[in-house]
C-alpha cells in the first residue's frame, strides 16, 4: 500500500513538473506581443464604404463627420446626342450646389439648390446602423429624407393650382450598404417619392423605386461606380429607369465624380421618377460632382 502511494505521489509530481515545464516553455516560446492578447480595436465600424456621400446621383451610406461642412457643386451637361453643334451637350449645363453639415458623426442636415426647375432642397440623413468589421453587424443602414420645392413659375398650368404646397415633393429612402472587401462595396436603395402636384390627372402622386449601386476601387484613390433605379409600377408617363456609370477620383480634400447618366435632374424626384433619356438613343448626360469638405 505504501509503495502504491509513493508511486502515486511520484506520478503526480512528474505530471506537475511536466505541466510546469510546458507552461514555462509556452511563455518562453510565445512572443510578448502574443501575450498582449486581442487588440483593443479588433472590432470597429467599417469605414469608407463609398468615397463620397453620393454614389453618383443617389445618396451613399456616408455622411460628413461631426462639425464638417460638405460642399458639393455638380453639373450635368446637355444630351450627348445633340451633336457637334452643341458640343455634344457641353454648351448646355445645369447646376446644383449643396451644403451638408454633420451635426454628429452619424446625422447630417443639408440644403441645396438646382438650376433645374429652380429647385430648393432640404434634407436629413441618418446613419442608423453601421457595418462592423467582424460582421457582427453585416450591413449598414442609412435613412435619407429630402423635401424638394420647385422655385420656377411654370410649376402649375392652371392658376388654381399655384399654391406653395403644390411646389413640393418628397423622397424617403433607406440605403442598405455593405462593404464586401477593401475594393468592393454595394448598396440597395428602396425609395418612395411623393409629388403633391402631378402634370396629368392620371399620373400617380406616389412612386416606389428600387435602386442598386456599387463601387469597385481600381486604384487607391480611383473607383468605378454605377447605380440603377427600377421604377416599381405607378408612373404612366414615359419615365425611364435611371442608369448611371461613373468614376470617383479622390485628391486629398476633394472628390471628383465624373459620370454618364440618362438622368438630367440631380435631386431625387427628378432622377428617380422623371428620367427621360434612353441609353439606346444616346440620350445621355455627361456630368460631374465635385465635393470639398470644410472643418469647423
Amino acid at each position: 500500500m505504501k509503495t502504491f502511494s509513493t508511486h502515486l505521489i511520484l506520478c503526480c509530481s512528474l505530471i506537475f513538473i511536466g505541466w510546469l515545464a510546458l507552461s514555462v516553455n509556452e511563455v518562453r516560446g510565445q512572443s510578448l506581443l502574443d501575450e498582449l492578447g486581442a487588440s483593443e480595436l479588433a472590432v470597429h465600424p467599417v469605414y469608407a464604404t463609398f468615397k463620397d456621400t453620393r454614389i453618383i446621383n443617389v445618396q451613399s451610406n456616408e455622411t460628413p463627420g461631426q462639425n464638417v461642412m460638405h460642399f458639393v457643386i455638380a453639373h450635368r451637361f446637355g444630351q450627348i446626342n445633340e451633336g457637334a453643334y452643341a458640343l455634344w451637350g457641353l454648351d448646355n449645363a445645369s447646376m446644383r450646389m449643396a451644403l451638408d453639415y454633420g451635426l454628429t458623426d452619424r446625422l447630417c442636415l443639408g440644403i441645396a439648390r438646382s438650376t433645374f426647375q429652380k429647385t430648393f432642397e432640404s434634407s436629413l440623413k441618418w446613419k442608423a446602423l453601421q457595418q462592423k468589421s467582424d460582421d457582427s453587424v453585416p450591413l449598414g443602414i442609412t435613412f435619407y429624407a429630402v423635401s424638394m420645392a420647385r422655385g420656377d413659375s411654370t410649376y402649375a398650368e392652371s392658376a388654381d393650382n399655384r399654391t406653395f404646397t403644390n411646389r413640393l415633393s418628397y423622397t424617403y429612402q433607406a440605403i442598405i450598404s455593405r462593404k464586401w472587401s477593401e475594393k468592393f462595396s454595394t448598396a440597395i436603395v428602396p425609395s418612395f417619392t411623393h409629388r403633391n402636384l402631378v402634370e396629368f390627372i392620371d399620373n400617380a402622386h406616389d412612386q416606389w423605386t428600387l435602386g442598386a449601386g456599387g463601387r469597385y476601387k481600381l486604384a487607391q484613390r480611383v473607383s468605378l461606380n454605377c447605380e440603377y433605379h427600377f421604377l416599381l409600377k405607378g408612373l404612366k408617363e414615359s419615365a425611364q429607369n435611371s442608369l448611371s456609370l461613373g468614376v470617383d477620383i479622390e485628391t486629398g480634400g476633394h472628390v471628383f465624380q465624373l459620370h454618364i447618366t440618362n438622368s438630367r435632374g440631380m435631386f431625387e424626384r427628378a432622377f428617380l421618377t422623371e428620367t427621360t433619356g434612353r441609353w439606346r438613343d444616346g440620350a445621355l448626360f455627361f456630368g460631374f460632382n465635385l465635393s470639398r469638405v470644410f472643418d469647423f
Partner: protein
Amino acid sequence: MKVILIATMLVASNFCSSQQWITRNGTVEFFSATIVENIEATNEMASGLLANDGRFAFRVPILGFRFEKALMEEHFNENYLESTRFPNGTFEGAIANWSDAFQDGQSHTVKAQGILTIHGIAIEREIESTLKWDGTAWIVQSEFTVLTAAHEIPIPKMVREKIAEEISVDVQMTLSPR
C-alpha cells in the same frame, strides 16, 4: 523523492519570478509638420508589456488614431496606413542596457532594440527612451521619428507638400504590474 520536490520548486520559482508590467491605454501621438500644414493625431489605445528581463512589446491599433479632421482620419486609414490590411503598429524587442537596479526612482535613458513594424514593413530599430519607476509602475517616455518611405507608405505628389516624409512620434505609457 527529494530530487523531484526540489526540481518542482525550482521550476515553479523560475516560473513565478517572470514578473511583467502592462498597459492597455498608453498614449501615442504623431506629428507631421510641413510649411503648408501641420497634421497631428493621438491614440490612447496603445498597449505595452515589459518583462523583468528587459524584453518588451508594444502594440498600437492604427484605427485608434484620432485626427482633428474626420476626412484626414479616413484617408490615413484607407489610403496611407491601409488599416484593414495592417491593423497594428508594433515594436518588439529588448532593452539593451537593462538592469534590475533601474527600479530606484530615477529616470534612466535606455536603448530599446527591436523590430518596429508599421504598414506591414518590419525594420530593426534602436529607440532611445526614458524609464522611471515611480514606486508602483514604470513610466515610459519616448520620442522618435518614422520615415514614411521606409515603411512603404506611398505619398502622392499632389499632397507631398502637406505630409512630411519624416513623422515624429511621441510615446507616453504607465506600465503597472500584471
